[in-house]
């Protein structure tokens, strides 16, 4: 349909509300973040002090607490990439074997991702509770007396891993659903012709399933990294970053600096963190392209 000049202008009205919201609430905050990251500013004063890259330098070279929080998030992310996605793939393959009750398992496995981070965090905080959590009660009744009054979330050794377990519990169903959808798009003929060629189940998995699933693997791993690195609700509801920063993650750090009124510094940290996330995502896409060729 060819439109006249007048129509072309009138048609713009359809996108005006979306465009205005985007400009004011998405684009402006992004530009403002970059601008503020070069200033020292407490959010109240009229004057903002331009200090160039000083805050970036400080974050990158002299803020071990920030790098500690990056490491904490990276630790959770690595566990998710291996254990959580491994489990998700295994379950997807099992459910894809045309078993009875496929839909029931699908509904149950996707229940944790539907729950809010706060709800999940608070339920598990109760389960982990040192004095009257059911986890310790079970462990003690199995004969592990050493867990009497053991506070999982306040011990330096266990706090981060305990939170990571909850994040994986909440997240594996997400990967499972995507893997299952991916498996179901692989045409049956591919397996049939592999079978004709005498390939056993394992060879079929390596030669048919894995190559067809590479784009899905990439997508799931990118989403896993973005989700786990930006973890916040679970940390906030379970440990608030404690004990002594051992479960701090980048978003809790940015939030803390903002709460202290260090707006320039917190935005600089957001930019550093955002750039690192972008680089990691791009590397993942690049590697997947290399493997595919």
């Amino acid at each position, binding site marked *: 349909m060819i439109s006249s000049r007048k129509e072309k202008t009138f048609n713009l009205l359809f996108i005006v509300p979306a465009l205005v919201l985007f400009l004011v609430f998405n684009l402006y905050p992004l530009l403002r973040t970059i601008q503020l990251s070069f200033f020292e500013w407490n959010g109240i004063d009229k004057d903002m002090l331009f200090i160039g890259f000083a805050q970036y330098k400080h974050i990158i070279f002299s803020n071990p607490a920030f790098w500690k929080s990056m490491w904490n998030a990276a630790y959770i992310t690595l566990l998710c990439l291996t254990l959580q996605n491994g489990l998700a793939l295994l379950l997807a393959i099992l459910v894809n074997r045309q078993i009875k009750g496929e839909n029931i398992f699908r509904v149950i496995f996707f229940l944790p991702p539907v729950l809010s981070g706060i709800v999940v965090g608070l339920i598990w905080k109760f389960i982990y509770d040192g004095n009257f959590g059911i986890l310790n009660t079970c462990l003690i009744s199995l004969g592990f007396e050493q867990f009497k009054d053991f506070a999982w979330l306040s011990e330096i050794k266990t706090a981060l891993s305990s939170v990571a377990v909850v994040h994986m519990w909440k997240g594996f169903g997400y990967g499972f659903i995507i893997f299952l959808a991916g498996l179901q798009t692989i045409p049956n003929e591919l397996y049939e012709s592999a079978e004709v060629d005498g390939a056993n189940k394992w060879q079929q998995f390596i030669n048919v399933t894995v190559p067809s699933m590479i784009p899905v693997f990439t997508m799931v791993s990118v989403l896993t990294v973005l989700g786990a690195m930006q973890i916040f609700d679970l940390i906030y509801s379970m440990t608030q970053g404690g004990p002594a920063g051992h479960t701090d993650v980048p978003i809790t750090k940015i939030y803390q600096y903002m709460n202290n009124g260090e707006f320039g510094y917190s935005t600089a940290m*957001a930019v550093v963190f*955002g750039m690192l996330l972008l680089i990691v995502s791009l590397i993942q896409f690049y590697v997947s392209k290399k493997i595919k060729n």
Partner: protein
Amino acid sequence: MNMLKKKSFLDIITYVILIVVAITCIFPVFWMLSSSLKTNEEIFKNMSLLPETWQWGNYAEAFLKAKFGMYFLNSLFYTIVGVGAIVIITSMAAYAFARLEFWGKNILFFLLISTLLIPIPGAFVPLYLLLKSLHLLDTRTGLLLCYISGGIAFGLFLLKSFFEDLPKEIEEAALIDGCSRFGIYWKIALPLAKPAVATLVIIQCLNIWNEFLLALVVLQDTSKMPIQRGLMVFQGTHMTDYPLLMAGLTIATVPIVIIYLLLQKHIVKGITAGAVKG
């Protein structure tokens, strides 16, 4: 014979793994429900799976005294208004991008969905400052505007391709009959897009109902807080009142689980559309 044995052995292993994982998924939710109906003494003393006597009174107390009723209504308000606005705003724009001609169409589309591809962590810091300068900090409007703008990219992405796949003939006929462009969008295209709109509605319901960080940054006044925020307020002041806390968690969870069970096919569609295509 051997093959059959091997197959049924594999089936047993499959079911054992699936059932163990399924129980692990359900148990924490079951534990929340069960604990919400216990007395505080029961929580501290024994670990029976079910309450001795079911304390339904906990829910009355949670709704009224612990203010979960108020938080619940707030969440309902944010979710309904936010999702409604997202549907109208994004479907209008998506229709235009799919069907109409205007200046800078392609560039604008990629600009608008770019937030799907580029992670912007810590956007809450400039949003806080923006709302402050607009005098919208600690207001319902301010929080809603953040939620609505957060849903635009996904909505556009989902609906545009759906509108493109609709047959053009009906719309062309309506145009010849003198129907206006807006009339065609509203009366013909939008009703036809129901399946995609349903997916968008459910995904955004989950997003807004479960959102916490923006509610934390934007709101101070408890009477405006959504339930996720209310749960943290309650937990902060009544550390060890576990039955009431668990009742609050249940109240925050029931609507989302009902929507999920009724419409899970649409949720799965939304998730896989976003992930596999993206």
